């Protein structure tokens, strides 16, 4: 090796959907969304990658890898990743956000919001927004089962319900549960 070539600096196009280089989208489990994104943003790369079906089918001959099959089989053959994705979506649909009021010293109460992280919401940011909106303190703590919980000072109950439903449109209203605290009905 007399001549050492200076290696070139390269960069790869990364898919926005799965964060991998676009040629690896087929392994991401979100191939359909990846393809849709690629087609709308980089049509030329899309053509190169996905219209080249001859190359793909040739290398696939002796392998068990579940590459994207032809249109007819697509609907019946869900890959393992896609099934897992659907399971997670279903879990997300059934997971709820709990709003509870808890008593502290004397006549002070706090409101807790649990279950926001199931919807991929950054709890710290949400806590800050809630604190700003209601002009009180808010903090994030971890509950026993490692879930995040936002603790807001004051008894806010349904105000929080409205706020979350409005601000975080990803959460359908049915999934937000306000747990009634019997003690607070003392008044």
């Amino acid at each position: 090796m007399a001549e050492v070539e200076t290696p070139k600096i390269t960069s790869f196009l990364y898919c926005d959907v799965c964060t991998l280089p676009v040629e690896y989208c087929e392994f991401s489990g979100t191939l359909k969304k990846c393809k849709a994104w690629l087609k709308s943003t980089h049509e030329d790369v899309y053509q190169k990658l996905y219209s080249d079906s001859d190359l793909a089918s040739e290398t696939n001959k002796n392998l068990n890898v579940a590459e994207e099959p032809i249109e007819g089989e697509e609907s019946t053959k869900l890959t393992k990743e896609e099934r897992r994705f659907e399971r997670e979506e279903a879990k997300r649909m059934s997971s709820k956000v709990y709003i509870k009021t808890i008593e502290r010293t004397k006549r002070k109460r706090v409101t807790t919001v649990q279950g926001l992280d199931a919807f991929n919401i950054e709890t710290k940011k949400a806590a800050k927004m809630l604190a700003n909106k209601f002009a009180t303190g808010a903090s994030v703590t971890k509950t026993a089962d490692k879930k995040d919980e936002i603790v807001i000072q004051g008894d806010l109950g349904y105000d929080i319900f409205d706020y979350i439903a409005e601000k975080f449109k990803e959460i359908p209203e049915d999934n937000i549960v306000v747990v009634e605290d019997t003690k607070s009905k003392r008044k």
Partner: protein
Amino acid sequence: MFKRFNSKEDFKGTTPIKSSIQRGIKSKLVETFPKLEHVIDELIPKKSQLTQIKCEERIFLYALNGEVILFQHFDGPVVPSLRLIHKCPDGFPQVRVDRGAIKFVLSGANIMIPGLTSAGGNLPEDIGKDKYVIIMAEGKGAPAAIGLTQMTAKEMIETNKGIGIENVHHLGDNLWKTILD
């Protein structure tokens, strides 16, 4: 290595590093990967400020411009992350696995020797033991992972069985997904 890895909240501390240490890291990198010699200053400019992030289990990350480019376990060697490797794949020793193995590599599995010695794979003969190599995939231009060889290339070809390369960091693992503010 990054299976039970972190989200941003697991970072214990972030510090900028002194330029003398930064130079040390760069020269160690060039020592391990000689082909990087001429490009290292483009990849990690001299005036730039690397930040060191302490994580659990004595793992240190080194970041530049919000991207983690290097990592280190204990006092072990400083290993480039895939973000850095993607900028210059030719600077590192490469092996290639065949198509069937790609799926497993991307979920963190170690690389078995038959994947390297089969038709779709490639294994240069001069690769030694306990060396960091990047794993390319058959038919793809971007490296898929970086791993540590478990035996020399010649031994791998002879036995043709078992684990050839330990998968240290791969595309889509938690380190890859870590984006810093």
